[in-house]
């Protein structure tokens, strides 16, 4: 029955226009970004070459689809959660507001099953959206701008050969999807508490912005509490580009994020099972 329920929830999610907004936004934005890079990236390329020329002999162009995807992943990482929250925030609260729980929760199915199906369906949406993002950034970028070695800037400069870059991007997107599942779960938790689709988005977005600020602003007090805040581990995907890949760190980050996810799920479940449907 759970599989059937998940199918029902997926139909409901993709039947709503708001669910297509994320895809539409990426479908418009990504070609625009790639086109913009292809037309006006000389400055960026010169900066990169300037930093590299003391240590490397550059043959050809470092500017390619990989680099564009890497840069895009960095600066869209606050915007993508918003697109996910449009759906995750509405999936439970929207039904409360619309009154449709009065036709679903009176049936011979436990609330836990219904909630679980909703959560899994929302995860499915998140995975599909990130996959679409990967196709529109890495796929389209590679086709449009070509591929080559990837220059990664973190604490130093790392050049990943073309063959390795594919693998690292695959890893990065898997980690990024995992982070977005945490965002999904956070927003889902808020969604199970209220009966309007806006509140969960505001709640989850506020927590993420505050959390990211605490994780990134170098103030003593923030640095002390930063390890206990889940947003401090949101950059887990960037570790896919380190050499060697710090699997131990990634594992620790993943465990902490998983614990947070479980806490969010437990709160959602308790809240939803005890909830009076009065709308």
């Amino acid at each position, binding site marked *: *029955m759970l599989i*059937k*329920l998940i*199918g*029902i929830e997926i*139909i*409901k999610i993709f*039947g*709503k*226009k708001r669910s297509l907004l994320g895809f539409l936004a990426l479908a418009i934005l990504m070609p625009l970004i790639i086109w913009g890079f292809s037309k006006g990236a000389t400055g960026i390329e010169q900066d990169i070459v300037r930093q590299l020329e003391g240590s490397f002999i550059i043959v050809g162009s470092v500017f390619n689809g990989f680099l564009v995807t890497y840069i895009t992943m960095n600066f869209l990482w606050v915007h993508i959660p918003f697109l996910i929250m449009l759906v995750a925030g509405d999936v439970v609260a929207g039904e409360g507001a*619309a*009154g*449709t*729980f*009065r*036709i*679903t*929760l*009176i*049936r*011979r*199915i*436990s609330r836990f099953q219904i909630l679980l199906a909703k959560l899994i369906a929302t995860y499915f949406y998140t995975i599909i959206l990130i996959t679409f993002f990967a196709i529109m950034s890495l796929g389209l970028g590679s086709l449009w701008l070509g591929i080559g070695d990837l220059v990664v800037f973190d604490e130093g400069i790392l050049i990943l050969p073309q063959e390795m870059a594919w693998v690292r991007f695959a890893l990065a997107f898997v980690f990024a999807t995992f982070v977005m599942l945490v965002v999904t779960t956070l927003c889902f938790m808020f969604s199970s508490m209220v009966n309007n689709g806006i509140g969960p988005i505001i709640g989850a977005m506020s927590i993420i912005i505050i959390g990211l600020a605490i994780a990134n602003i170098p103030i003593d007090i923030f640095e002390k509490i930063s390890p206990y805040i889940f947003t401090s581990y949101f950059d887990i995907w960037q570790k896919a580009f380190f050499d060697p890949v710090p699997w131990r760190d990634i594992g620790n980050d993943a465990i902490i994020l998983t614990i947070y996810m479980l806490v969010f799920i437990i709160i959602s479940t308790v809240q939803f099972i*005890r909830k*009076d*449907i*009065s709308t």
Partner: protein
Amino acid sequence: MSEVILSVKNLSKSFGKRKAVDGLSFDIKIGEIFGFLGPNGAGKSTAIRAMLSLIKPDSGDIEIFTKSVRKYHNSALQGVGALVERPDFYEYLSAYKNLSLLATMDNVSKTRIGEVLKIVGLANRREDKVKAFSQGMKQRLGIAQALLSNPKLLILDEPTNGLDPRGMKEVRGLIQKLAQEGITILLSSHLLHEVEQTCTTMAIINLGKLIKIGSVHDLLNESDTFITEIKAKPLKKAWKLLKYSKLISFVEENNGIFKVKIANKDLSKLTHDLIKADIDVSAIIPRTSLEDYFLSLTGDSI
């Protein structure tokens, strides 16, 4: 004694300081069309939501088919169909798709969807999105979703709300038809005449408490006085007789129709007196019997 299909036991529920349902108890027997009557805010919908596990009662329990809804949600609700207040659906989906999702949850075949759409007269609109439906059509679709699982007990909360007179008549006809097919029905309404016309048994609640319960017929017979409309000619002669009749405590005439207050038992004697006085009586219609009764129970005046 008939078998009890639904039993409400000392049910109470508060929202903040307001007690919505206060120690409510009653039984519904198999085959009844049970009217659940009360003014707006009496606690009918709260009680129905508790019956269907939409809200958790503060105390008390509800048993459906002898199974506690609290303890055995799934098995207790097997064989129950319900329409709670407004019929809200996934407006962006078609009527068929909406019912298809619910049929999957009920584990019933897709052919049943066609059957219930036919029963409620929406078979030709099955592919239309619900957002294009009128209130009446949504109401009928609401009944259709309640019928999906071939219920033995149908709980309908204000099913004629928002319907025009024709729609109301159709829904009432449908309820009676379903009852004839053996479905036990709980019909919640604040419309007195609806309960009077449709139900066999009724419970009257006010301020969350049960005021009266019994068969509609018996409860009406308990009532002493009726407001009855009489059409009689010649007007002057009829007026004179009615005004001075000892059987009548109140009379007024408006557009050729007399409105009189008379005890139920005296109605036939008055008819006899009118005919004996050579007055042509074309209609005697008890108009607001249940209304009077209801208002007297809830402490309001006519």
